[in-house]
């Protein structure tokens, strides 16, 4: 930015030069009036947008987490259901476990006990279901290794070796849920993009409005021999700072609001899952610098466009 700025005439040590630079920056800022309302406008815009952005980010992260959970809970597990006459159940179960043990991609397999099975049925039949009186199929839970299992191959092997065993890889259940989570995540990311775009547009417009308001100041400065970079620096510095402060305030407010929200309950996980966890609390901290960068670029472009119209 200051590549073309004239260096002070005397040779100085680097420390002095930095001090001189700061003084020059302050001087450059002072030649532009503070302009009360438009300063607040920029601050408020940045704060409001950062606040909304924190929420959109939390939503995206929650959607992400949800998708991951479903991925983990459903995509990585499968069930083998063994329905056979009472006498053959034990035998076929043993065969199935053997087959699974030699199938690549299967991390572990485990027979679901009667208690667990009763728990699964509870919603529909109540806790006092007479398990003894029922001839339920045996269920084997298969936990897949990260790579996943070749379902088709496994299905064929099972059909050959244990005719009563049927593999259910939960595809039916998985697809709509994964799709739903992906769509929610997309929505959240789109809002972040929208918020970012609108923020950039608003900061640009606010900067251009400020520059238009200060057209006379710019003309006077050019007339007394100020360089473009000197004039631009004043505006750019001010708008970047304002956006940074506004965004920081908005992020802080947003994080406090998120933190104050009731903790997530598993009962309605999706709805109350909006919130940040662990390392995620650091993510919103990226918003103010990014916003400041956007403001810096926007103001610079706006400033040089306005300056080009002044001789």
């Amino acid at each position: 930015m200051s590549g073309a700025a004239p260096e002070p005439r005397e040779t100085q040590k680097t420390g002095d030069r930095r001090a001189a630079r700061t003084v020059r920056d302050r001087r450059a800022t002072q030649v532009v009036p503070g302009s009360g309302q438009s300063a607040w406008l920029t601050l408020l815009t940045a704060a409001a947008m950062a606040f909304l952005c924190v929420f959109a980010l939390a939503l995206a992260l929650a959607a992400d987490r949800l998708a991951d959970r479903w991925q983990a809970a459903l995509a990585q597990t499968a069930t083998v259901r063994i329905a056979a006459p009472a006498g053959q159940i034990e035998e076929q179960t043993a065969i199935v476990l053997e087959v699974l043990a030699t199938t690549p991609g299967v991390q572990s397999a485990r027979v679901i006990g009667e208690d667990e099975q009763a728990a699964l049925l509870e919603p529909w039949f109540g806790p006092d279901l007479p398990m003894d009186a029922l001839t339920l199929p045996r269920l084997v839970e298969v936990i897949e290794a990260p790579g996943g299992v070749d379902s088709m191959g496994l299905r064929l092997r099972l059909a050959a070796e244990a005719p009563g065993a049927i593999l259910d890889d939960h595809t039916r259940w998985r697809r709509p849920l994964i799709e739903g989570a992906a769509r929610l995540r997309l929505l959240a990311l789109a809002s972040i993009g929208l918020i970012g775009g609108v923020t950039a547009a608003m900061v640009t417009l606010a900067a251009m409005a400020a520059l238009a308001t200060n057209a006379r100041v710019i003309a006077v400065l050019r007339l007394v021999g100020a360089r473009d970079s000197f004039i631009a620096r004043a505006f750019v510095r001010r708008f970047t700072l304002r956006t940074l402060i506004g965004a920081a305030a908005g992020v802080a407010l947003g994080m406090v609001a998120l933190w104050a929200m009731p903790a997530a309950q598993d009962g309605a996980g999706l709805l109350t899952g909006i919130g940040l966890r662990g390392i995620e609390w650091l993510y919103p901290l990226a918003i103010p610098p990014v916003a400041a960068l956007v403001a810096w670029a926007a103001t610079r472009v706006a400033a040089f466009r306005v300056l080009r119209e002044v001789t």
Partner: protein
Amino acid sequence: MIELDGVAHSYGGTELFSDVSLSMGQGSFHFLTGPSGAGKTTLLKLCYGELQPRSGDVRLFGESRRKMGRNDLARARQRIGVVHQDCQFLDHLPVRENVALPLIASQRPVPEGDLDDLLGWVGLSAQADALPPTLSGGERQRAALARAVMTSPEVLLADEPTGNLDWDMSVRLLSLLIELNRMGTAVLIATHDLNLIRTAKSQISARVLRIAGRRMQLAGADL
């Protein structure tokens, strides 16, 4: 230092003037008169590079205006002092800083002592910390003149610098300009005040130029 060579200018429509030539060398002193709307301010704008001539050539310190970039122009302006007809200031800075603005804007050190002396000479010591909007019309013109001479420029262009001033103050400022001129500054003053021109001519040898009817001529004997 500033040379106009066969310059013509027009704002879109009819030509204001054509084939104007002028050479401001070191220590030269020019007056520029002519009826209202003749193009005096326009000529001054050509001299400090705010306008590009339609035809002909303007040279600032030997460099052609057409070949100058924006930063070259800024550098040339740091060597020229201008008193504009509508004295514009930064309304949020006190008079003191406005007068020192050419130095601040080009990041040169401000000699506070000289600044005080200058404010005293133009009679603005009491208004040094006032904001420009509270100044009277004459005080604005004096502040504008102070700002123009603050940098000890090589060329001074003044557009109607005494229009809102009483006679005594006008003469006082004129003597400041004559003083500067004697130290080598080239001075060009656009004015309607023929008394001022007469007074100046009694002290130094000044050339009087007159724009009227699209041409510029030397006016001397008729004053």
